[in-house]
């Protein structure tokens, strides 16, 4: 079991580094062949690249079934060219982006991949029947908002394909981050001849290392090698197993128990979903199971949204008082303890800042009650201060923990439980929203443009249906800064600018960050190369996973 020591070290690396530095462990025996079993509770929401917009499914699709213009390095948030020869070149101040496809790229039937096929998939993602996919293309491309898809013969003029190798995107605004945007499955090729429209979801045509042999939705998916995929053109995907068998419809707790036991074929299996907190108490005290667990923060941030147009939280001092009063340790416990969440001190999660955790206030984790009381006095608030917090009828342990910690400074929080189905309607309605509610955001790619503008841009605030800017925060300075950062073309420089904006807004505090959730995944003893991916919500990166020959 020498290999296991290495894996344990890898688990520790991912636990402590929790960022882009996570290393991929490829053991000595890590070779090609074998069948990887994936144990899942239910079906994928979508595998059609035009409809795929959930983190783990985006990982699965773009690592195994289709290639995108650019993609992430294994286990890293750094981008590399995939179908394209480079990360794209921009002109017109960042409003026009050109990509050139590599030579010799082929689909599963050996036919060549053409630039027009990428255009076709972007177009079909805007058809009314092809629902659920990312809307970045629709919002960024000139004419995208009005376009209704290619199926009635109309085409989108803002995507040009002058030849089979070149694709040009014309955007509405400068987008320095566009090299990241084209990592999304929207920017993968779908040949028109193979497009089965809505039913493409049941059988995507492969441009990646595997093709679908069998897909019975909700029951199983079997992937076998795509012989026409060329490893030399692909910088990321190792494509180690000969076969990948996803078994769907298994009970979640049972999956964990099977993986802990890891007997028989389960030694070649990996869990599709992260393990629940009740399972951690089984895994952590069990050394032979613990070494088969990988953990990482998700890249999502949870926070308390203050209703900023409304009293008493129109006053930043009162918001800061609440933030100082919070017992974030108690909140962390409500999330499931240090193994399930980190205490958040900024909006941008560490996965987006190269691991750095910005902390403008440096408050002790259990809160600073004296400072909170002083701030309340400064703001001239009469105590006890009574406020309401929206919560759902199904889960409110986090809210209860917040309620308990604010009691200490004389703020009485009344929980207002609403049905889960209407929580977003209620808390996103300017007229109906309570003073506080707990929300979160996960970025679609590791660039501040996918995180801060959706939650902070005051121009997005609508009378109803706000799902990003749930604090209804309007600040002209912030909006102006967002527009400035959009034009920065150098990714490193723009990320730095987004971090500065993060700190600036933290001082105004429209939302109070509370937690960065973590996820842990369990796998069998023959499975190799498992490392969480920081972009796809800590999901293990299937680009590098292999199966050791059972001994």
């Amino acid at each position, binding site marked *: 079991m020498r290999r296991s020591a290495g894996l344990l070290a890898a688990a520790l690396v991912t636990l402590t580094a929790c960022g882009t530095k996570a290393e991929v462990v490829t053991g000595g025996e890590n070779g090609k062949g074998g069948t990887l079993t994936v144990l899942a509770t*239910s*079906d994928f*929401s979508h595998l059609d690249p035009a409809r795929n*917009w959930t983190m783990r499914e985006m990982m699965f699709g773009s690592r195994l079934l289709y290639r995108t213009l650019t993609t992430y390095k294994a286990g890293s948030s750094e981008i590399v060219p995939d179908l394209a020869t480079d990360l794209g070149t921009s002109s017109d101040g960042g409003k026009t982006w050109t990509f050139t496809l590599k030579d010799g790229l082929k689909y599963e039937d050996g036919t060549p991949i053409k630039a027009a096929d990428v255009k076709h998939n972007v177009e079909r993602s805007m*058809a*009314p*029947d092809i*629902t*659920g*996919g*990312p*809307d970045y293309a*629709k919002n960024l491309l000139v004419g995208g*908002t009005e376009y*209704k898809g290619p*199926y009635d013969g109309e085409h989108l003029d803002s995507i040009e394909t002058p030849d089979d190798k070149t694709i040009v995107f014309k955007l509405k605004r400068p987008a320095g981050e566009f090299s990241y945007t084209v990592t999304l499955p929207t920017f993968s090729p779908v040949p028109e001849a193979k497009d089965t*429209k*809505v*039913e493409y*979801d*049941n059988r995507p045509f492969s441009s990646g290392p595997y093709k679908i042999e069998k897909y*019975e*939705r*909700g*029951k199983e998916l079997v992937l076998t090698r795509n012989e026409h995929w060329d490893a030399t053109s692909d910088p990321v995907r190792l494509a180690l197993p000969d076969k990948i068998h996803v*078994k769907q*419809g*298994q*009970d979640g*707790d*049972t999956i964990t*128990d*099977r993986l802990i*036991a890891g*007997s*028989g074929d*389960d030694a070649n299996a990996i869990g599709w979903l992260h393990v629940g907190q009740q399972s951690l108490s089984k895994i952590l005290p069990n050394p032979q199971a613990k070494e088969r667990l990988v953990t990482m923060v998700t890249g999502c941030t949870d926070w308390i949204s203050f209703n900023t147009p409304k009293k008493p939280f129109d006053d930043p001092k009162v918001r800061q008082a609440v933030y100082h009063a919070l017992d974030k340790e108690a909140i962390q416990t409500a999330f499931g303890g240090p193994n399930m969440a980190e205490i958040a001190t900024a909006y941008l999660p560490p996965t987006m800042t190269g691991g750095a955790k910005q902390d403008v206030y440096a408050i002790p984790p259990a809160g600073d009650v004296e400072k909170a009381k002083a701030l309340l006095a400064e703001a001239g608030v009469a105590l006890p201060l009574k406020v309401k917090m929206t919560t759902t009828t199904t889960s409110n342990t986090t809210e209860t923990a917040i309620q308990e910690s604010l009691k200490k400074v004389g703020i009485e929080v009344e929980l207002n439980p609403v*049905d889960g*189905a*209407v929580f977003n309607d209620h808390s996103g309605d300017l007229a109906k929203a309570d003073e506080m509610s707990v929300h979160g955001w996960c970025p679609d790619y590791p660039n501040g443009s996918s995180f801060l503008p*959706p939650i902070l841009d005051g121009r997005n605030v609508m009378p109803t*249906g706000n*799902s*990003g800017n749930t604090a209804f925060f309007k600040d002209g300075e912030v909006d102006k800064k967002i527009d400035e950062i959009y034009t920065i073309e150098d990714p490193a420089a723009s990320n730095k600018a987004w971090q500065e904006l993060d700190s600036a807004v933290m001082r105004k505090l429209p939302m109070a960050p509370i937690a960065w959730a973590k996820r842990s995944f369990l796998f069998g003893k023959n499975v190799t190369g498992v490392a969480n991916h920081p972009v796809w919500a800590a999901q293990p990166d299937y680009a590098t996973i292999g199966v050791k020959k059972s001994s």
Partner: protein
Amino acid sequence: MILYTLRRLGAMALILLAICAITFSVFYLLPDDPALDACGKTCSPERLADVRHAMGLDQPVVAQFAAYVTGIFTGRTLGTTGLECAAPCLGYSWQYTTPVWDLLLDRLGASASLAAGAAALWLVAGVAMGVVAAVRKGTLLDRGIVLSALTMTSVPVYLIAALLIYFVILRSELLPYPDYQPLLEDPAAWAGALVLPWITLAALYAAMYIRLTRASMIETMAEPYIRTARAKGLPERTVVVKHGLRSTVTPILTIFGIDLGGLLAGAMITETMFGLPGLGKLTFDAIGKSDQPVVLGVTLLAAFFITFANLAVDLLYGVIDPRVRYT
């Protein structure tokens, strides 16, 4: 008798139509907007309107219902891209991008296997033990049977399932983890995957049938005609089976028909716990994902089974208990 059957079939059709209408309107009132669910994480009002139109949700509810019922007989074309849904079209699952009818057919096998095996097990075990307990009333055997029936009824089904999985599969590895395959493709895997679910379901129902049979049997055995039969010098076995059991069967059969009909789509927890790809599991997933066409389809199919089972039971009454007259 034939006229009676025809009339019942007519009533069955009416009942199914009523259930269809009630269920359809309930789903129409659900707080979840299926278009909003389908639309994605962010959804502009314009895009939502397009999606609603593509899914046919912008039509008045009566028109939607009419289209649904017509589709069952003639099939229909859905969406804006000419999606075909052949008759009998019970709607289209946007979640699985498959016609609901195909999904139902696909999942029926596992549910039918589960229900048939479990029903056979509990009916035989339940009635036999119930009769034995009644005949041997007051003895140690009776008390033992009554006590185990009591224990079994008090354990929730998912607890039985969890304990079986833990002890039989994970701990002692007597059985591999269930990997359901259709009977005709791989009989060994089929049976292997179903043994524990059969036991789980049968334990639950057997306990109920033991108590029911015992109570009913004790009452029957005290009837004057049983005394008469005994007085005539008939062997005790004949008295119990031919005279006693016969009138006890009527109430049991009523319950059995209902249970069996309901079980085809109702073994939601058992199927979920054992990962069986049946109708109950399909429904469980569909409810979680607001896939309303699937829930509607399963409701209708299940209602069909239940009404059909009721009819069959009523017709069987005549065979078993000649005192029942069809009017």
